[in-house]
């Protein structure tokens, strides 16, 4: 329905060129990501981001002040993260492979381990130094029309686009 409406509005050729996989999966997924954020906000007033979990969880094993400041929230951040894993697992169980069958429902990436690990290190440093990630700045911060978050999103988006294109242009495989 969303895809048909978009094709009417923009023309089918344009939609195919810009969105080869259609729009609906992205739009529905994005609305659900927002809804999950809103549910927590409704009940608790907390604007939850995903990357604080990294530092708050480290407070279980380190007494450093950077991590210890998150002690009060570390338990619910673990629950939030387990929820994200669980929700994605429900998606996989329904939509990947046969519905509600474990067989073939796992999907694995072709991106190489060194790119994941090195990228992960930089993501771990950058999100914590930069005060937020794609959910903290991108969803909650942009939703708050926070100038800090808008600048943060613009920064990481532009740098990520340059990086991904440079890596691709250098002929580095996935």
């Amino acid at each position, binding site marked *: 329905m969303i895809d048909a409406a978009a094709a009417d509005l923009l023309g089918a050729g344009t939609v195919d060129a810009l969105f080869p996989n259609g729009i609906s999966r*992205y739009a529905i997924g994005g609305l659900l990501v927002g809804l*999950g954020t809103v549910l927590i906000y409704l009940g608790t007033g907390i604007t939850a981001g995903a990357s604080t979990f990294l530092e708050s969880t*480290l407070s279980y094993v380190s007494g450093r002040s950077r991590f210890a400041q998150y002690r009060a929230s570390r338990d619910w951040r673990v629950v939030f993260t387990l929820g994200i894993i669980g929700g994605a697992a429900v998606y996989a169980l329904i939509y990947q492979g046969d519905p509600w069958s474990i067989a073939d429902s796992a999907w694995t990436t072709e*991106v190489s381990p060194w790119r994941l*690990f090195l990228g992960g290190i930089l993501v771990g440093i950058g999100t914590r130094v930069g005060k937020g990630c794609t959910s903290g700045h991108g969803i909650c911060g942009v*939703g*708050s029309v926070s100038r800090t978050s808008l600048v943060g999103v613009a920064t990481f988006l532009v740098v990520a686009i340059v990086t991904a294109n440079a890596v691709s242009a250098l002929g580095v495989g996935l």
Partner: protein
Amino acid sequence: MSRHPLFMPLILVGGLVFGFGLGFSHMARPEVVLDFLTFDDFGLLFVMFGGSIVAGIAFWTLPKLRGSAPLTGRPYGRRLKSFDRDVLVGGSIFGVGWGLSGICPGAAYASLGVGNWPILYAIGGMFVGAYAQGVWRSRDADDAPAAAPSDD
């Protein structure tokens, strides 16, 4: 510290919906993020804008309807962080990592949920990075009182 009995269940339900959404949007797949960043598929714009518009409507309307959240008594507010050089430096480092790996924290947790076990390399890396910056930035602060407390 006593919490409302529904606090944790709500966090869990919110996480489940959030994670299901990340799975449904395919953002849990690094390939889809890399296709977006190299202009092969602009669909991810709908994830970020869709999510932030839904969140924005709630952040805008709820403070006008009620003063504070029922489970915590926390005042409804927006997510506003102070701006300084760190936002640009950290955002740039995050951008290089995101562009190299195609993965960000929330999507990485969801990626584990869709069965993508190699994402553990990325999650492991994120903990290494978060630990390294924490040790670095705690070096002066360990004598001083802890910085501003976080969300509880």
